[in-house]
């Protein structure tokens, strides 16, 4: 269950093509830079258990500045320690694990739900379309933060509920994109061919329509991954995120922000971490869009 393998969930049955498109990335330096930023965090998150790090929740010595060599156990706090004496480097890396796992899970679930809604609404049309579009319009009328607050305060702040909240907030938007793509694709010859062969609507939707809609969806998925990362950190910041004590980038900022006047690094480090990860997703999306425009 690493974040990396989940990344592929957004392009079902297109694994091989996914790798060819990774090869295409060479055309865009922006995309490569974005991908390296993401991989940097993914690799750190995967290696976190075997890296020589302090326990992220262990109180060591409070308020050490970065590269302070005066640790009593001859160690070095590369990024210093926080107000409770926990090693910030270790917390940032373990926080990366949390945010990557939950952001990819939430985005993947939102995508599965949104794609199913979109393909059903677009292909079957009629009442299916009316009902699904109406529900989507209702959900899209909510300011997203209101959805998050209602769902999380009502059901409690657990990982599952955060995934649920992200799904509620994102699936309608994904549904709209997929529906639009499917409305265009359903008039293609290969769909008529499949219908003539007597394939079931389910087969046509899953095997014929969705894989052919993947181009714009991959770009959108990258953007959404970045946005979901922000959302999860924001919920952590607002006190609606994953329960303590495990490190969470947003909560790290919230906890240490009042102490910024004499130990600013405590909040700046997680802020840099989240910005760089989101930048990675956004640049990758930008590069991918550029590549797809060239064809």
């Amino acid at each position, binding site marked *: 269950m690493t974040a990396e393998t989940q990344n592929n969930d957004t392009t079902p049955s297109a694994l091989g093509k996914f790798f060819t498109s990774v090869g295409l990335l060479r055309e865009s330096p922006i995309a490569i830079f974005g991908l390296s930023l993401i991989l940097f965090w993914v690799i750190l998150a995967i290696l976190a258990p075997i890296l020589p790090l302090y326990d992220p929740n262990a109180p060591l010595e409070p308020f050490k500045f970065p590269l302070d060599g005066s640790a009593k156990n001859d160690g070095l706090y590369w990024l210093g320690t926080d107000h409770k004496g926990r090693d910030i480097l270790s917390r940032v890396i373990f926080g990366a694990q949390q945010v990557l796992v939950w952001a990819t899970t939430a985005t993947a679930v939102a995508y599965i739900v949104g794609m199913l809604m979109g393909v059903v609404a677009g292909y079957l049309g009629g009442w299916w379309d009316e009902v699904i579009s109406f529900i989507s319009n*209702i959900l899209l009328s909510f300011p997203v933060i*209101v959805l998050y607050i209602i769902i999380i305060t009502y059901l409690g702040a657990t990982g599952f509920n955060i995934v649920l909240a992200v799904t509620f907030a994102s699936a309608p938007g994904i549904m709209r994109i997929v529906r639009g793509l499917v409305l265009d694709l359903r008039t293609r010859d290969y769909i008529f061919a499949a219908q003539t062969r007597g394939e079931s609507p389910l087969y046509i939707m899953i095997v014929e329509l969705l894989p052919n809609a993947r181009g714009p969806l991959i770009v959108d998925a990258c953007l959404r991954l970045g946005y979901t990362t922000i959302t999860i*950190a924001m919920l952590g*910041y*607002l006190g609606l995120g994953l329960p303590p004590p495990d490190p969470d980038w947003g909560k790290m900022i919230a906890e240490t922000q009042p102490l*910024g006047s004499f130990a600013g690094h405590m909040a700046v480090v997680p*802020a840099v971490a989240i*910005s760089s990860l989101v930048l990675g997703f*956004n640049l990758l999306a930008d590069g991918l869009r550029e590549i797809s425009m060239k064809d």
Partner: protein
Amino acid sequence: MLILAARRFVSMALIMVVISFTLFAIFESDKLAVAGKVLGPYSNTEQRELWLEQNGYNEPFVERYFTWVFNAMRGDFGDSIQFKAPVADIMWPRLGNTAILAGLYMLFMIPLSLTLGVIAGMKEGSFQDRAVSVGSVLTTSVPEFASATFFTAVFVFALGWFPGTAAMTDGFSWAEIFLPVLVLVMYGFGYTARMTRASMAEVMTSHYIRTAVLKGIPYRRVIMKHALRNALIAPFTVIILQLNWLLSGVIVVEVFFAYKGFGKLLLDGALFGDIYVIEACTLVAVFVAVFSQFISDIGYTLLNPRIRFT
């Protein structure tokens, strides 16, 4: 035009009805839980039932919903549990504060993003285009709580130019509101700038612009008179619809800078379990969002010369 507006209005009203009913069902279908929230965790079941009886909670659900909606439309949202005062008395001033914040944000964000977007879109692929595109990706990648951290580290702690909070205890202060607005603009302008850029770039490739240039009209005049009007239709919709997710940023900024606004009230209400505050705030937030969609739809059709009404 009137028919279109009327149809939009009906669908807006329908959405409001469905949403308010859903909200009411989520928050108030469990009567005993409501009484428990109002009377506190140490009240017993008898007290709660007595309270329910006294406050008309034993009416049928649908009837209670209508009473609630009717009261809400008159501006009566019940009493806040946390502040022991009518929700309306607390909420409207807070909404005013947030309107100031959002207004200032719009005031700076709109000219900035439109100018940058137009400059970038004028010449696709040029240096200024690349600079604006990369710059806006950079700023939209830094969420509000991160950029607020950076700005306070620099402007508050290192340089000491601005105060780190915007609690406005001594009345309105420009110095205090500067950083919150800066944070919102930094995160928000990129999206509109990119939309404007795309729209402008599309207009610049159209035939009538080429014709205008070939006729020998000065370039500046082509941009100002011919391109801008069409290029700014799409950004208009984007700007209005921003209200919908501006609230997320506003909540973060209000919490970060301790600004007494609507978003912080909603969040505090939610964390405290202040049921009538949550109801009132979500209702108002959704109304603003739905109404802005209505405005953007109508505005788009009015602005777009290609849509004609006969």
